């Protein structure tokens, strides 16, 4: 908590002191100690009759990171590690149990609750995983892509809306005439591009992409990723990119955060992370990628199962699967520590054992 206050004080009077901390000024999104707990208890009556206790899943447990303007942060991790929950917390779909999300200096949760803060919805948008579920099957593309424009009163009349929607469709490589069609008349890749066009409609600065390519086949993945990279170059977009595909992450990201069981275990620049991973879990993940150039190297397959998030292991959540774990790892939870060029949460790294 202390570190939070000392960090935030120079930025809050940054208006008076423009030269104060340029690095902090450049961060568009700043997440501090973010946590989200879901209650998964049995119904009240069952708890009373059967004497069960209330149960909680700590989907996200104290995650902090920052994304600089115009950059891409990728979050990777196994299924169920809380990546998607982080995405939903950032755009306000969930209210955090603890912690803050600051967007361009203002607390998003507080801002979204106020009428004036609704404008914040225009500045950050989300691209969803499943292109078959993310478009209302009964709406025409014109209405789907036009919804944010209408909602925020960005276009005057129908001809203006048509023109703007056609323009948006062009920007993702679709034809303007497609706006009269329904979602079921498109392929998965085309649907995902419609979804991107909708997210771009309000000209946002920040896009949260929740596994935008995992439901697409490989040839289409590249197409969608390239469109996203082009748009980033043209419009200076900032991305939070959620994925479990390390090859995709390597292609799109500037920095990479590795999550394990709701916690961030390592965060580093792309080059650093892929060339010199520090955390044992990151190493395990990278070693699991089959690579023809590494054919001579011994590979450590990912061992063990992801623990039950209802009863996470004590101390470091990774210690039951970690080859370097000792008694301290089983008792004490490692904090995220800054090393040159990266941050890592591991006792073994901190003690210099690995």
């Amino acid at each position, binding site marked *: 908590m202390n570190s939070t206050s000392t960090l935030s004080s120079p930025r809050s009077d940054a208006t008076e002191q423009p030269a104060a901390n340029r690095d902090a000024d450049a961060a568009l999104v700043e997440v501090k100690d973010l946590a989200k707990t879901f209650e998964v208890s049995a119904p009240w009556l069952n708890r009373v009759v059967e004497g069960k206790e209330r149960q909680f899943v700590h989907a996200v447990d104290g995650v902090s990171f920052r994304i600089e303007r115009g950059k891409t942060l990728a979050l990777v991790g196994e299924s169920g590690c809380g990546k998607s929950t982080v995405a*939903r917390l950032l*755009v*306000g*779909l969930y209210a955090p149990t603890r912690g803050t999300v600051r967007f361009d200096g203002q607390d998003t949760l507080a801002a979204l609750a106020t009428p004036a803060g*609704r404008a914040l*919805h*225009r500045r*950050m*948008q*989300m691209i*969803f*995983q*499943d292109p078959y*579920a*993310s*478009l*209302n*099957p*009964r709406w025409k593309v014109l209405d789907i892509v036009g*919804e*944010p424009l209408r*909602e*925020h009163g960005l276009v005057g009349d129908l001809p203006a809306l048509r023109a703007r929607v056609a323009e948006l469709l062009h920007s993702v490589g679709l034809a303007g005439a497609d706006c009269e069609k329904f979602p079921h008349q498109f392929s998965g890749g085309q649907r995902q591009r419609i*979804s991107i066009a*909708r997210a771009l409609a*309000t000209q946002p600065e920040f896009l949260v992409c929740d596994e935008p390519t995992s439901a697409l086949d490989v040839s289409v993945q590249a197409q969608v990723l390239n469109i996203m990279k082009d748009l980033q170059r043209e419009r200076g977009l900032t991305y939070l990119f959620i994925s479990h595909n390390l090859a995709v992450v390597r292609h799109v990201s500037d920095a990479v955060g590795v999550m394990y069981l709701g916690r961030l275990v390592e965060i580093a620049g792309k080059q650093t992370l892929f060339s010199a991973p520090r955390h044992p879990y990151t190493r395990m993940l990278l070693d699991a990628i089959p690579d023809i150039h590494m054919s001579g190297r011994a590979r450590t397959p990912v061992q063990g199962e992801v623990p039950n998030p209802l009863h996470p292991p004590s101390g470091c959540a990774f210690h039951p699967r970690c080859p370097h774990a000792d008694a301290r790892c089983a008792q004490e939870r490692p904090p995220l520590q800054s090393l040159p060029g990266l941050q890592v949460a591991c006792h073994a790294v901190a003690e210099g054992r690995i």
Partner: protein
Amino acid sequence: MQAALVRFLDGDVWHSFRKSPMAITAAVIAFICIFCALFANWVAPHNPFDLATLELGDARLPPAWDEEGKAKYFLGTDDQGRDILSTLMFGARISLLVGVASVLLSVVVGVALGLLSGFAGGKTDALIMRVCDVMLSFPSILIALLIDGVGRAMFPNAHDTLAFAVLILAIALPGWVPYARTVRGSTLVERHKEYVQAARVIGVAPARIMRRHVLPNVLGPVLVLATIQVAQAILTEATLSFLGVGVPPTQPSLGTLIRVGNDFLFSGEWWITIFPGAMLVLIALSVNLLGDWLRDALNPRLR
């Protein structure tokens, strides 16, 4: 509108209709019944409510194919000398009016509460669902009788329109529960879909998301349920009228006709009660069959 029609004719539902002889037969019968009922004023050979045309000498005539029958009265006459065929058409009009109106009312109430329940969740959801459970634990005819009885006691000299309103309310009130449950279930599924979340990220207000996104996507099962419930409501109305607490006697429905005819059944004048009964069966059966077909046609797993 035209585009919607083209889509419909091109779609699976119309195709499945054309392939189903049962559905076509049911639709034809239902159409004839509804047409005769709606346009009874023009279709019916006599006006049973025009006292000037009634001849008491023609009372209790058997159907035309009977030796004593008159060709003028194809299905015979009742004790007042009214043409049975004409009273059937006028009676069916009342029955359909009450049936459709009460179903519409319960659909509106049920869909609204179900949508709210599924979307709001938490305490609102628990409250609405417990009310549903309580409603379901009473036989619906009992609730209808209760409301109708209270309504009559409160307004003893009520105008006909008010009597109709009370009757429709009495049938609609126990009827909203299945809609609420169906819609709640579908809403719970839909609201977690990503297009609803996308709308929330855009900043669309919850009420607007419910109305514009969720509602159109949960109406399919409601349509099926409503079709089947129309038949059910007509039968409930007939039951209430048969018990003498239904529509006012000046506006006889099929149920009233059956009750009146029942008095003559044992004196051999069967046609007074059998024909309204047959008409009731025909309407209920055809509407039910249409509902069954619609359920199958809209269920992707049965295609």
